């Protein structure tokens, strides 16, 4: 690593984050639960397999259209558990609060946490609160960890993709990152931009009920669709071909992306998933996804191929093609 200091880009979810994990964390902690680097760890026990995951939330601003830092903290962890086929059941909740933070706002956030935990069917069973001096944290940071039992007969992992498989996406890209950006200083956009922040466990249950042979599920958060697909392509040592015209992006998100020079394929989502399924199952799976409110706008966006292993190729709108690389450098910090 050429850098000797941590840069914001190390937290972007892109290439520098990967370097950090590979070069600093993994050499110290080697074990079979960690190594697949899936969204949650799998821990096998006599009675079955438990999924375990944790995530920290530092979004700025803490309230944004369509959600707040509390809702995000529950959804993020519930979704990480769901992506490896677990039924999320118990969550921890830790707060780091800056001195001077409004108790009224704290109440609002905690109430939003209760609401979305109920919706997702998870219990908050343990927690912790730390208060730090003014300036030592920005308002409020949240960490959640979660566990759930993995469904029997299901094996979801980023290493499972095979040539011939189909790639599905559950809906519009970029809503979350754009909703957060729209609130930032200097970008006061008007319009109906709303974060897609939502717990995906119910959608995943329905998908696995019909199609237990799904190979891999991922939620394209930081780094967006492009980065997540590259991760899977690398882990499974396969190539991928994506049809740009099939990838759903809202007009408002596309408009602002054009204006700011951002690419919607790299924008963060908090209520979307990518599914990779064996050939001939995609139409059936698509129907099930579209029946669910969180998968209404699902599309089959591409396929897994043998050629160009570890690469994702985009067939562009006008019939050309190009490489779709991981996020490098990071677009904007503190979006989740």
């Amino acid at each position, binding site marked *: 690593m050429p*850098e000797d200091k941590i840069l914001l880009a190390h937290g972007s979810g892109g290439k520098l984050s990967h370097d950090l994990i590979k070069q600093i964390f993994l050499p110290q902690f080697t074990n079979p639960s960690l190594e697949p680097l899936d969204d949650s760890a799998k821990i096998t026990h006599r009675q079955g397999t438990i999924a375990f995951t944790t995530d920290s939330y530092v979004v700025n601003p803490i309230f944004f259209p369509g959600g707040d830092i509390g809702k995000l903290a529950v959804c993020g962890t519930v979704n990480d558990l769901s992506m490896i086929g677990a039924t999320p059941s118990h969550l921890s909740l830790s707060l780091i609060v800056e001195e001077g933070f409004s108790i009224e706002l704290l109440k609002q956030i905690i109430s939003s946490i209760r609401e979305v935990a109920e919706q997702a069917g998870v219990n908050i069973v343990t927690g912790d609160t730390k208060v730090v001096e003014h300036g030592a944290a920005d308002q409020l940071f949240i960490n959640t960890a979660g566990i759930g039992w993995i469904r029997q007969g299901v094996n979801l992992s980023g290493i499972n993709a095979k040539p011939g498989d189909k790639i599905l996406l559950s809906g519009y890209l970029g809503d979350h990152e754009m909703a957060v950006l729209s609130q930032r200083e200097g970008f006061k956009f008007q319009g109906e931009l709303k974060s897609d922040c939502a717990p995906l466990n119910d959608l995943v249950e329905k998908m696995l009920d019909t199609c237990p042979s799904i190979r891999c599920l991922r939620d394209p958060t930081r780094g967006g669709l492009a980065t997540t697909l590259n991760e899977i392509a690398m882990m499974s040592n396969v190539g991928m071909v994506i049809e740009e015209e099939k990838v759903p992006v809202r007009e408002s998100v596309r408009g602002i992306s*054009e204006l700011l020079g951002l690419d919607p394929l790299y924008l963060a989502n908090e209520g979307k998933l990518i599914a990779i399924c064996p050939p001939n199952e995609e139409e059936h799976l698509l129907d099930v996804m579209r029946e669910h409110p969180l998968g209404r706008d699902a599309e089959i966006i591409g396929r897994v191929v043998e050629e*160009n292993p570890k690469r994702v190729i985009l067939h562009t709108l*006008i019939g050309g*093609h*190009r*490489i779709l690389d991981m996020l490098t*450098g990071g677009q904007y910090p503190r979006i989740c």
Partner: protein
Amino acid sequence: MKFIDEFRDKEIAEGLIQRIRKTSTRPTQLMEVCGTHTVSIFRYGIRGILPEQIKLISGPGCPVCVTPNGDIDLAIALSRQKDVIIATFGDMMRVPGSTSSLQKEKAEGRDIRIIYSSLEALKIAKEYPEKKVVFLAIGFETTSPTIAVAILRAKEEKLHNLFFLNSQKRVPPALRALLQTKQVKIGGFILPGHVSTIIGINPYQFIAKEFDRPAVITGFEPLDILQGIWMLLKQIEENRTAIEIQYRRVVHEEGNPIALKKIDEVFEKDEGRWRGLGLIPDSGYRFKESYKSMDVRNFEIEVEPLKEHPECLCGEVLQGIKSPLECRLFKKVCHPENPIGPCMVSIEGTCHTYYKFYQP
């Protein structure tokens, strides 16, 4: 999306590609001058769908990339002054100077702020009357009117603490320099749409008249670019040379007289220093007498000696002489996380575009 989707239509694109195939009978090398064109060409995979005999080469049209090292070093030296706030467009942050970058200086605690419009610099100057606010005035003719307006306003509002590090560039003299060096064979130019919105068609006439080359002012959507290429090929096959406008929905022949007047009020033509191309007559601007007090180059300040990576090919890449693939540093040492030259920093830099989109 209205006014965008119309210019990304697959069927029309196929029609244009057919026309290009029918028209083109000989090997041709065309230069897209502007970095925004380079990005669009790669983003939509346009190189791959053109007939093999048509080669596109990227030109010096990324303002961040052509800013000379010395100006970056000057900005860094200024940022180290206790009473200075630097206001800059975000792209400049990561450009490596001789030994540092603005991003690294910010991590050391210097007051460097990213802004999105020249007028924001005025706001900062008003907010901090006890500080000297220095705006890094980087850009081509597209940006110059907004810089001129900021200067005019600062004068009007009697702001005495706002200064400009002027490193603006004018595109046509650089194209003349490229044609004069004859190092690259250029069969025609895809001219920048937005620069031309300001300057119009006349400043380019020398390309056709003196150098006998065709040029087409082109928009940035894929259909614009395909149509621009077809218009160029048509001129070449018909042995005509003219400056034509493809981007009619935005560009007028006379340019934008109001914007030109603003530039003219504040600046006059001057030689300009370009990374890679060196000193080019008339390719820059200097302050007119009554605005000279805002020129930061009047400050007495020590700047570190120039140092450039001996293997970095940004200079040759900017002239279209070499492709990033010929650079030994490309992808191995130099990548977006550790840029050695500016062409790897800017999202419109040729090296960055190759890094992101190029598939062997």
